[in-house]
């Protein structure tokens, strides 16, 4: 698409490079930039009324070359990072990220980050609060980075050591506990068995189990005489049964197993799901098999002494060891906690510092080394307004590093690149700017529609939403979010949907305000009307009783007793609320205001395109594009508005002058038919019944209307070929003049002279005869010179533009009727909700039934009101208003081909990294 890219390069730079033949890298030191503000044309000054750096257009940017001494580079970049006003251009695009100069430092930073994330995870697992620092630590010097590195690695090593130790100790404790259980159960088994053996030996005295010593001696003898082998151990409870079965099978029934569950708690606190078993068997072969089976079942075998005394000693030993273990574990726990607390306290601080270091090194990677390898060179974009501040920051950085050579900032001319768009926003305007940016970022120094959107967006929303009650709900929601801004900031970052609403809190507040206003005008509060100023309709006839309730009567606008002959002071008269023809009246009214506001919005958009053309100094375009466009719309569509207002004002009903009034209500012509006839050049057929009274006012509202209409339509349509051919012919003539003059000057310099210095008429007529009016297909391509488009391309572009405009003017005008459609839908939904829901309890006659019913039904009505009418209709109206702005309004003047200015700023970088952190931590178990 051919655009005025050549001529749209920043004209503020023209004073700098005019007169010098070099176009790249002309380095004039920054001190000469001070005259740029005086060198601005008076137009630019006029365009920034209200002060410099306002939102009307994006700020002037300059591309600068930054030369830093290597030692000073780090500190200077740190200062710039805090400032956040410089966008660096990558001077090493062909180099991969692994080959860049500072990649080792970046790797070190990432290693430190990994360690810190580990510490953070451990701290979060122990539910230690991570302390948020109040101050913003500056980026530390490289020395500090090494210190940080060592202390961090020590902390991490200590922590992991402690954790491993802890785990090992726990396992030990577990084993000891199992052993303790085993020993106590073994006591139980062996004493029982000893009983039975003693029984079988037939000695009744041995029933006395208190005399352990005696029995033991006996059982010892008994056992050794039987040569039993004992294997004792602990196994999981669930495996116990199959374990027993296998043992039985393998040993062919020659084995005796005793087992019992452990009811003790394990080291980790949960109930231990294991059982103690003792296997009694004979023979060495069986022993080996039993051992293998135990291994297979992951049963832990503990040495269990046969003698009870030995068992007692062992138990004593185990208990002591358990006590010691508990103390050691406690100490370990305390140590670990202390380490984590230290870590958690400084964690955020360290994170910030390390991230800043990493950011600085990433930025330094974009630099290139100059020949002497002593200085780093960078190219960057910065707003012209802030050059002073940036220089001071660089000076501070250089001083901090103690370097002697000051940093050098040169401005450099840019060739074909469009500078990035920078709008200085605050919390009020950022919402509206993001609405505009969502469609397309402003081209550099183009008119910024966001400023006007602040007022027109809530207004058009309110025209569609128009209800005092719902508007009040929206307003209260907006006020709540605005007042709780600081507290809700955190919640908004976590939840995406709430974040969207929170970001638009000022938009919502304004929308609520305007909706209350339009609600008063539509006289609609929760679908009811208010009678504040006294209705101007009345019924003055005498009533005939009994009243026939089904009868309806139309109040006569011509009767001074029924209509006061002046309208209701503010808004729609409340008499219309219960009228059966309310919608008929409101439709006519709302459709007309939709057209009125729509056309005003579009004419406003076209006027803004005038400003764009003035900025670009393409004065010829004003006559070739702007004036024809404006005239086309005004002549055809604004004439419709004129007719609407004329009809509103002139035609009236008055019974007193009924028969002689040419402006009576019977004579009012139908505007739609008049408009269609105007387009078709059809003379209207007068109605014979009305001619006598109206004398022509029923077809034509004023004398000469037919001829004026014909003139308007024809002159409007004549604008189309001007739009279609004007600009291409002008461009071609300009090129031929240039070729004739044979000067190899830059395109943009010529364009500045082209406007006032148009070629003489004789040349023009010669060119026009030679050039083809319908030359879209003719290959008259003057494609000489680098980026010039051929004639056919210019024609195609202009043709598309013209067709889009002409057809768009019809379709966009009709598109504004959605203002009517949505407001009708809203008011009808609201009315239906009231009459179907709230009316039921309100029209019940028995108060004892009605009151509880009202109590319950009110909640349902309220939920539906907020859910359907406020949220759903609100979102719908928001979307339609957005569409109206993006398509109908902005297509008249907006290019939106810009690139956003993304400065090197620590806050943005840190926020991103924190969000990424949360993701990583959520991901790993």
């Amino acid at each position, binding site marked *: 698409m051919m655009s005025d890219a050549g001529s749209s390069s920043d004209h503020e730079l023209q004073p700098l490079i005019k007169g010098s033949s070099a176009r790249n890298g002309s380095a004039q030191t920054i001190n000469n930039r001070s005259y740029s503000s005086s060198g601005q044309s008076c137009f630019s000054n006029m365009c920034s009324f209200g002060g410099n750096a306002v939102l009307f257009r994006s700020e002037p940017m300059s591309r600068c070359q930054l030369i830093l001494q290597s030692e000073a580079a780090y500190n200077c970049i740190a200062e710039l990072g805090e400032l956040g006003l410089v966008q660096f251009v990558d001077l090493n695009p062909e180099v991969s990220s692994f080959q860049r100069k500072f990649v080792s430092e970046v790797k070190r930073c990432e290693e430190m980050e990994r360690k810190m994330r580990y510490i953070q995870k451990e701290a979060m697992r122990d539910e230690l609060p991570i302390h948020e620092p109040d101050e913003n630590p500056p980026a530390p010097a490289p020395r500090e980075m090494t210190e940080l590195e060592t202390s961090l690695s020590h902390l991490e090593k200590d922590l992991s050591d402690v954790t491993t130790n802890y785990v090992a100790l726990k396992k030990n404790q577990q084993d000891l506990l199992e052993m303790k259980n085993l020993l106590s159960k073994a006591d139980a088994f062996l004493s029982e068995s000893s009983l039975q053996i003693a029984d079988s030996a037939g000695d009744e005295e041995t029933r006395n189990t208190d005399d352990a010593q005696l029995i033991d001696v006996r059982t010892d003898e008994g056992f050794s005489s039987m040569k039993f082998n004992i294997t004792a151990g602990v196994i999981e409870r669930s495996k116990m049964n199959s374990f027993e079965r296998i043992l039985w099978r393998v040993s062919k029934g020659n084995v005796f197993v005793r087992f019992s569950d452990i009811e003790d708690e394990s080291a980790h606190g949960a109930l231990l799901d294991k059982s103690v078993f003792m296997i009694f068997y004979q023979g060495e072969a069986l022993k080996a098999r039993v051992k293998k089976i135990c291994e297979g079942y992951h049963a832990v075998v503990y040495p269990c002494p046969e003698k009870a005394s030995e068992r007692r000693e062992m138990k004593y030993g185990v208990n002591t060891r358990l006590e010691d273990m508990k103390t050691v574990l406690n100490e370990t726990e305390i140590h670990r906690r202390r380490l984590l607390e230290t870590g958690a306290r400084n964690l955020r601080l360290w994170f910030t510092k390390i991230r800043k270091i990493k950011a600085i090194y990433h930025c330094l990677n974009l630099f290139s080394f100059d020949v002497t390898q002593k200085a780093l060179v960078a190219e960057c974009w910065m707003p012209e307004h802030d050059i002073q501040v940036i220089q001071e920051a660089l000076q501070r950085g250089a001083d901090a590093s103690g370097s002697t050579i000051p940093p050098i900032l040169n401005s450099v001319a840019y060739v074909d690149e469009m500078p990035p768009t920078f709008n200085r926003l*605050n919390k009020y305007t950022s919402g509206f700017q993001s609405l505009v940016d969502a469609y397309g970022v402003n081209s550099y120094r183009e008119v910024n529609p966001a400023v006007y959107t602040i007022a027109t967006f809530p207004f058009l929303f309110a025209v569609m939403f128009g209800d005092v009650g719902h508007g009040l709900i929206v307003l209260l929601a907006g006020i709540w979010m605005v007042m709780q801004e600081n507290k809700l900031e955190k919640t908004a970052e976590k939840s995406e949907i709430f974040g969207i609403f929170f970001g638009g809190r000022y938009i919502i507040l304004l929308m609520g305000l305007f909706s209350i206003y339009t609600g008063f005008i539509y006289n609609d509060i929760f679908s009811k009307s208010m009678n504040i100023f006294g209705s101007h309709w009345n019924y003055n006839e005498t009533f005939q009783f009994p009243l026939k309730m089904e009868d309806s009567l139309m109040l006569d606008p011509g009767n001074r007793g029924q209509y006061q002959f002046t309208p209701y002071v503010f808004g729609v008269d409340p*008499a219309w609320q219960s009228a059966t023809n309310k919608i008929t009246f409101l439709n006519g009214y709302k459709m007309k205001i939709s057209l009125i506001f729509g056309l005003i919005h579009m004419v406003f958009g076209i006027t803004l395109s005038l400003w764009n053309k003035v900025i670009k100094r393409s004065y010829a375009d004003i006559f070739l594009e702007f004036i024809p466009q404006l005239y086309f719309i005004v002549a055809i569509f604004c004439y419709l508005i004129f007719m609407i207002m004329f009809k509103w004002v002139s035609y009236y009903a008055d019974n007193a002058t009924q028969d002689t009034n040419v402006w009576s209500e019977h004579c009012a012509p139908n505007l739609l038919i008049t408009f269609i006839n105007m387009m078709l050049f059809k003379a209207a057929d007068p109605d014979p019944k009305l001619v006598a009274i109206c004398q022509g006012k029923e077809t034509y509202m004023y004398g000469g209307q037919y001829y004026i209409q014909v003139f308007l339509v024809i002159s409007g349509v004549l604008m189309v070929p001007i739009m279609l051919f004007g600009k291409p012919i002008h461009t071609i003539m300009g090129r031929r003049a240039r070729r004739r003059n044979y000067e190899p000057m830059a395109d943009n310099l010529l364009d500045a002279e082209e406007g006032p210095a148009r070629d003489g008429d004789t040349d023009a007529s010669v060119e026009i005869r030679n050039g083809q009016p319908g030359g879209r297909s003719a290959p008259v391509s003057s494609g000489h010179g680098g980026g010039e488009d051929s004639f056919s391309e210019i024609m195609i572009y202009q043709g598309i533009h013209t067709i889009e405009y002409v057809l768009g003017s019809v379709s966009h005008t009709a598109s504004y009727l959605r203002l009517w459609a949505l407001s009708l839908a809203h008011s009808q939904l609201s009315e239906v909700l009231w009459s179907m829901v709230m009316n039921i309890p309100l029209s019940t006659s028995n108060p004892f039934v009605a009151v509880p019913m009202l109590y319950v039904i009110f909640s349902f009505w309220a939920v539906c009101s907020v859910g359907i009418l406020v949220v759903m209709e609100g979102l719908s109206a928001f979307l339609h208003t957005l569409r109206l702005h993006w398509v109908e309004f902005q297509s008249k003047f907006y290019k939106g081909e810009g690139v956003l200015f993304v400065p090197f700023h620590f806050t943005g970088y840190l926020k991103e990294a924190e969000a990424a952190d949360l993701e990583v931590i959520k991901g790993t178990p």
Partner: protein
Amino acid sequence: MGASWLPIIFFSLIWFVVGGIIPFMIPKNPNRGVLQVVLMLTGASCWLFWLCCYMAQMNPLIGPILPQKTLFAIHQYWNGWDD
């Protein structure tokens, strides 16, 4: 012409003050231009909105069709005007 001069002058004055007088009273801060534009646009559009509603009703060509019940209520509860 069914318009009475008092409401017209009153509301036009209000919106003229909002859109035409207050913008010049905003102190010099960086947002001055934006605030001026917003106030002017608000004043103009809200005034026009009110005016269209006023003009649409001042010479009505049809009247509201009301059921008998409502007419009786209007007669009873709303104070008319002295003719």
